[in-house]
């Protein structure tokens, strides 16, 4: 049996677990458990990305989703309650309507998507093929994605880095990491 046939069953298992974790995140009231479940959700997502051959996305998802955002959410939990309040009963149906409509639109769009791994799909056909052919001649970097991000779109990546850095600074100022130490020192003095 071909391994591509086998891995799709693993995909089903991973997606089933993703669904279960998603429902648990919605249902649980203990915010701490929710933070840990979002970390687990990122781990599962990244495992699924690996099986879809999107290794670089999986790398980012594991580092950002499971690593940094878990820590940031814990920092945010310092400033808020440990338990979430149950939502009012009346609001459920409107939200469900919006979610159902968005889901139906997504399902409606599925037939227009290119087949998984299709070499003729728009993402692979035009510029993508040029990149794949040009990278070995232009830059001596083995990974095409890295070459595109850090060389062909270098300024774009620089802008992204600036945005992410200032966002991280803003979050740190908001959450106030390290203020505890300052307060303790002032108390000692």
């Amino acid at each position, binding site marked *: 049996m071909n391994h591509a046939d086998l891995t799709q069953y693993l995909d089903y298992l991973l997606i089933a677990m993703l669904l279960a974790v998603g429902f648990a995140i919605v249902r649980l009231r203990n915010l701490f458990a929710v933070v840990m479940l979002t970390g687990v959700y990122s781990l599962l997502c990244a495992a699924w990305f690996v099986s879809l051959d999107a290794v670089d996305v999986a790398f980012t998802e594991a580092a950002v989703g499971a690593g940094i955002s878990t820590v940031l959410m814990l920092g945010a939990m310092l400033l808020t309650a440990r338990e979430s309040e149950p939502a009012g009963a009346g609001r459920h149906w409107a939200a469900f309507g919006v979610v159902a409509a968005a889901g139906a639109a997504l399902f409606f769009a599925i037939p227009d998507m290119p087949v998984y791994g299709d070499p003729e799909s728009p993402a692979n056909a035009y510029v993508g093929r040029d990149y794949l052919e040009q990278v070995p001649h232009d830059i*001596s970097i083995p990974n095409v994605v890295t070459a595109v991000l850090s060389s062909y779109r270098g300024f774009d990546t620089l802008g992204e880095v600036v945005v992410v850095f200032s966002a991280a600074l803003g979050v740190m100022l908001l959450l106030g990491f390290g203020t505890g130490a300052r307060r303790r020192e002032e108390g000692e003095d």
Partner: protein
Amino acid sequence: MFYGISLTAILVALWLTLSGPFTLSGDYPIVMGLGVISIIVTVVLTYRMRIVDRQTVPVGPAIPLFAYWGWLGGEIVKSNLAVLRLIMKPEIEVEPRLVRVAAEQRSELGLCVFANSITLTPGTVTVDVEDDGFLVHALDNSFTDPAGFAEMGARSDTASDGKKTGDR
């Protein structure tokens, strides 16, 4: 100096493990250059921080430690089978115990190796470190044999600095 050289050797080995074919093939000078630069920067930084010593680059203890890991592997297999027998019974029947284990290791590394070894063998977990020993939680009565702990302590002490227990 010895520790600096061994740190460099470890970093080179790590770089080759993680990007071996690209670096060794010679087709990608950028990758090789980045590797050389990052290794040099790391070594220079650690030198400037003055943390290159026996504790951060434990090459001296590493050799007796590997021999110790061989013995520890046998212990891990034995206690794994014991725990497996306990938890695969149709009816769970365990009698957990909290016991104090005396720890008379000479060095902090020895203490650390001993505590980690206790945790690493299933059935016993170091819960707390106190002044003169560890507080150990054991899954069942059969895991709390003092002679076993004493042997593990002596061996981890020997492994951490290469001397026999007793000649301090």
